[in-house]
């Protein structure tokens, strides 16, 4: 098992290295200089570029970049979005907001999805099941940014129940109120995914032998499902939930823009549009790292839950 984990981690770092290399080359080959400020004289721009090693060949630049990242933890300095602040610090300041919203939306979607999925499985082919499956189709199909617009207009603007945009200075209840809409917008998809998956799993296990046994010992359908079938479906459920995190993180790129949340998604868009190359690279690395970590965790948890996969990989 240890060897398997080490292998996967090494593979992850190799992939990360490839992505970083490609990202660095693409971003640096983009037209337009980082320092194309018309107010600065050419000599100053040249000096700035020389200081950031921009006048050297791409390979040498990449060497400097890697040296900075690995030896000094220096990811370059943001140029335009937050001038002369290290890109790493810009990122670290914003990651908590993004993570907070994403994790909250997953946290509320999990119990809701489990409840809906169990109800749908227990009332299979009855009205409740049909209603839930309509809800699932809608929630899975409609993009999160459409939900976000709808919620923003109806709940925040018309009914004035929530603030229209995120308030970064608010504290306590108000802070949660301003986070509620983005969290809701992001949660619809995961709720539907969990519901659909759990319903499928439960419906399948209903006919298995251990369920017959559970009923033989006197449990009714609901008791048997909740105590036995549900527990059996919980482990594979983790493998649906963890990859959802990457999806939610991608979706939050847009949601953050709609609700003006000062998170990572916002600086990704802004840094691309403003040619702030060091920051763009840092954000891209962050997204790659998160998605690679998710894949790693899924792989490892598969290995722990189902040892057959581990054997196959060897």
């Amino acid at each position: 098992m240890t060897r398997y984990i080490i292998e996967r981690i090494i593979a992850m770092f190799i992939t990360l290295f490839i992505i970083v290399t490609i990202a660095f080359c693409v971003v640096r080959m983009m037209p337009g200089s980082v320092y194309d400020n018309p107010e600065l004289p050419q000599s100053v721009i040249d000096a700035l570029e020389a200081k950031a090693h921009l006048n050297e060949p791409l390979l040498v630049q990449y060497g400097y970049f890697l040296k900075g990242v690995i030896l000094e933890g220096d990811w370059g300095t943001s140029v335009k979005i937050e001038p002369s602040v290290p890109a790493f610090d810009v990122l670290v300041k914003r990651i908590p907001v993004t993570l907070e919203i994403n994790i909250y939306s997953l946290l509320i979607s999990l119990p809701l999805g489990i409840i809906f999925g169990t109800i749908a499985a227990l009332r299979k082919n009855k009205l409740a099941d049909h209603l839930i499956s309509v809800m699932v189709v809608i929630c899975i199909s409609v993009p999160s940014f459409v939900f976000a617009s709808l919620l923003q207009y109806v709940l925040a603007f018309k009914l004035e129940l929530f603030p229209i945009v995120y308030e970064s200075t608010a504290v306590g209840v108000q802070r949660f109120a301003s986070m509620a809409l983005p969290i809701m917008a992001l949660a619809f998809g995961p709720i539907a995914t969990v519901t659909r998956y759990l319903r499928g799993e439960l419906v399948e296990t209903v006919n298995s032998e251990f369920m017959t046994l559970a009923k033989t010992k006197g449990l009714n359908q609901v008791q048997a499902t909740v105590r036995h079938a549900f527990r059996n479906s919980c482990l594979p459920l983790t493998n649906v939930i963890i990859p959802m995190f990457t999806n939610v993180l991608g979706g939050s790129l847009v949601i953050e823009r709609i609700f003006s949340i000062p998170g990572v998604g916002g600086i990704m868009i802004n840094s691309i549009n403003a040619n702030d190359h060091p920051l763009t690279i840092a954000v891209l690395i962050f997204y790659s790292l998160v998605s690679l970590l998710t894949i790693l965790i899924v792989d490892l948890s598969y290995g722990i839950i189902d040892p057959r996969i581990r054997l196959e990989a060897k």
Partner: protein
Amino acid sequence: MYIADQNNMPKIPKEKFVFVQQGTAIKDENFETKPIGFFKDAMMRFCKNKASVSAMVIILFIIFLSIFGPSFNSYGFNDQDVNRINLPPRIPVLENIGIADGTRVLTNRRVDNLDDPEKYPEGSIVEILNRRTEKNVEMCDVKINYYVYTGYDDEYFWAGTDYLGRDLWTRLCRGSRVSLMIATLAVFANILIGIIYGAIAGYYGGKVDMVMMRICEIIGAFPQVVVATLFIMFFGTGIFSIVMALIIRGWISTARLIRAQFLRFKSREYVLAARTLGVRDRALIFRHILPNSIGPIITKAMIEVPNAIFSESFLAFIGLGLQAPEPSIGVLLSDGQKVLLHYPYQTLFPALLISILMISFNLFSNGLRDAFDPTMRGID
């Protein structure tokens, strides 16, 4: 053993052949029904699924609109006119019953200006709401017919106009055309690459399979957002680079599906029989094994279409969409989102369009999957 040779068959006159059952009637009957082929069978099952059939009708209708919609009225998708910006929707028959009648409420207007024909042209005021006095000035909210107000009384913009005075109906139709085109191109390329790659990996197996699947795994580990961003940054915005950005990572799931199908079918007896007869690898792959996967391939393609439409809108939203003035659903939606609180209809129509399109495609592909593979029924 004697093997009859076609050329040296002994000549037997026709009269010598006699039916074995001569005299007694042949008991078995002809089939009264016609044989049902794979597609017909699937078609019958598909037609029973009402949700999927209506989804298909909706999709066909949207495709029809995307092709012919722009010619329903005389406005071009890029006809800009600063005098008619942000007009609300107005539809000929519906305006009489109060929906889409081209009216808008202007808030905080001075009452004494209401009679001024310079400011409010004849007949533009529909209703005066919420009269009040603030700081000794009589104020009110006015519901006005915005078309009369701006002097476009004879025009009908069915979905209103945007911030440059462009007709939204035309832009919506053209946008759905562009989005569907991007999705179709991307899905077609993905399926094609996926079929070839997956077929080779699955058919040859062993080392070839291992290397090809490792490559898949590495490409699959690239996050979609990052790949698409880099691609569009590098090649610039446009239909081509968006399609390419969707292809880069999109073919992997198809390749995996096809590979699994090949692993399942390649050791069947009929493949062995064909191989014994000396059929070449290429014919074995494409004529004998691949046709088994036609159902999953079609289903997969239909599942990928809404994903591609979603990805395109997503890219438009983060500012990596098509270049103006070309519209796509995503571009319209992200433009509308900017003025959501003032002109909600500019978000409503693209949002409705993309939602209906996504739901329809999902229902349609569910129906197709059930039709082609009834064992999967109910596993939504």
